[in-house]
């Protein structure tokens, strides 16, 4: 590596670290992107200076294609951000897997395959391939192309881990005897299948955690690539990513009061059939007129958004509602559960898109003590995060998960498309409670109607 490249790499690594630091506050976050882009530019520039690079033709063509595909991917609606993240992780894993494969055959050809090199290549390829299919599966589940229910069968963990174990054993064998090159494609195939099996049993409600995990894997495969290519910038940047993904998943797990192993291997929702009750229970439904009246007479309203708001693209209507109510002196707050939506911080971004001031967003721990004094809790397409079973029913699969205590408000208004259970497939007692009024319909349409009532009201009086 030339001196210039080394220096550029060093600056680039520093810029990445600064970028993550600046990401911690909204006011410095903009700088973070600039810094990260700068870091990447230096890294690419430094790499292009590499003396070993003899042709730029293929790099140019591939990069141009990457631009063409990447640009539209950045224009997706914000509700589709989780799917995009899954896809992007798949691409990251793919890149690692491909580089590992290329390097393996190069070394094999040149007879330079030392044990250490074989071991890191095997590690890179396994990580890269499982991240690739895992990311694709996660994207599929998030886009609801693949069933969001956990798919489970007996002995699932044993099958999955036998696969991974087999891949690792084959890898070890190759380290021992690098001439057995037939084993390499087998490792790739096993890792690819393992990625699918890893995500298959994970239910929708755990998606935020899984997405963070995959982020961590993508980082780790970059680290492995760094060892393969003896490139410390890859190791540094990959480790930063790996760490960030890991921290986010731990935060998500804490928010659901579950351990990391439980999320990955517990097949959330599998116990569910046992808890389902057959008794018919009645719900009270309300109209937009009732809702508008309730909301105007309230002093304080807490809005609890969930994925339903994202699906219905209702965030702009929510903003109108917020404007109407604030104008009347109603204190409106937004309570965002850490795992609401399909990825960490999903709701915050949507509300930000609709221009709702972020100082109106409160976190679960701060809002819960106030809930008994709140007049109306308006639940928009959220389900599991307000399910009181998490506090009361020890048999419920979500028992012990911290929730927003919407049921403690004087009145609960819940907007929902139907009585179908939510993404995680768990029945919600909140909807049957005495102080709950249901507004059935598409969140956007329902809130639109309520806003119309409110503004009409204002005009006649």
């Amino acid at each position, binding site marked *: 590596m030339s001196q210039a490249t080394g220096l550029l790499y060093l600056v680039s690594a520093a810029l990445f*670290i600064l970028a993550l630091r600046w990401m911690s506050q*909204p006011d410095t*976050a903009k700088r973070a992107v600039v810094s990260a882009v700068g870091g990447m530019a230096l890294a690419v520039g430094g790499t292009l200076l590499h003396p070993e690079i003899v042709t730029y033709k293929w790099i140019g063509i591939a990069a141009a294609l990457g631009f063409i595909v990447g640009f539209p991917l*950045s224009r997706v609606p914000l509700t589709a951000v989780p799917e995009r993240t899954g896809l992007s992780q798949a691409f990251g894993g*793919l890149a690692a897997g491909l580089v590992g494969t290329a390097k393996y055959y190069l070394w094999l050809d040149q007879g330079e395959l030392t044990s250490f090199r074989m071991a890191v290549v095997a590690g890179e390829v396994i990580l890269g391939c499982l991240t690739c299919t895992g990311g694709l599966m996660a994207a599929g589940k998030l886009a609801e192309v693949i069933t969001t229910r956990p798919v489970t069968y007996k002995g699932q963990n044993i099958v999955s881990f036998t696969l991974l174990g087999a891949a690792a054993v084959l890898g070890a064998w190759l380290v021992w005897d690098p001439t057995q090159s037939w084993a390499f494609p087998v490792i790739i195939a096993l890792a690819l299948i393992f990625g699918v099996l890893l995500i298959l049993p994970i239910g929708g409600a755990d998606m935020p955690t899984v997405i963070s995990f995959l982020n961590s894997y993508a980082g780790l495969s970059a680290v492995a690539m760094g060892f*393969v290519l003896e490139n410390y910038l890859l190791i540094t940047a*990959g480790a930063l990513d*790996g760490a960030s993904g890991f921290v986010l998943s731990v935060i998500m797990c804490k928010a659901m009061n579950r351990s990391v192993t439980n999320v990955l291997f517990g097949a959330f929702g599998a116990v569910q059939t046992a808890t389902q009750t057959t008794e018919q229970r009645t719900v009270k439904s309300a109209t937009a007129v009732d809702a508008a009246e309730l909301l105007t007479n309230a002093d304080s309203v807490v809005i609890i958004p969930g994925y339903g708001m994202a699906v219905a693209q209702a965030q702009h209507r929510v903003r109108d509602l917020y404007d109407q109510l604030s104008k009347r002196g109603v204190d409106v707050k937004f309570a965002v559960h850490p795992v609401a939506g399909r990825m960490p911080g999903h709701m915050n971004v949507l509300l930000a898109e609709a221009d709702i001031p972020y100082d109106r967003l409160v976190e679960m721990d701060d809002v819960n003590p106030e809930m008994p004094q709140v007049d109306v809790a308006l639940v928009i397409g959220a389900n599991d995060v307000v399910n009181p079973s998490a506090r009361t029913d020890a048999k419920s699969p979500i028992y012990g998960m911290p929730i927003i205590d919407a049921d403690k408000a004087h009145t609960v208004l819940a907007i929902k498309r139907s009585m179908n259970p939510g993404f995680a497939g768990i029945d919600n007692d909140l909807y049957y409670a005495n102080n709950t009024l249901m507004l059935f319909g598409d969140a956007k349409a329902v809130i639109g109607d309520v806003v119309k009532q409110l503004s009409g009201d204002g005009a006649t009086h």
Partner: protein
Amino acid sequence: MLAAFLGLDIIRRVSRLLHTPLMALTNAISSIAVVGAIIIAGEAHDTLSTWLGAAAVFASTTNLVSGYLITDRMLRMFKRREIKKS
């Protein structure tokens, strides 16, 4: 290793508000794999490795472009309001 510890410490301080943009940004940073891909594709040892390398360059450039653009797009939404408020 040092980077991992630094990372752990830094991420823990990120406010919940910004988790989604943070993930998008780390996604973009993970496209650092482009560095490795460029080296493989550029060495042009044989057809197989060049093709694999080029495919890897494609995959990580896609990440790089979409990752940064979407992070920027999301952050602009958080930003805009601050200007309005002040």
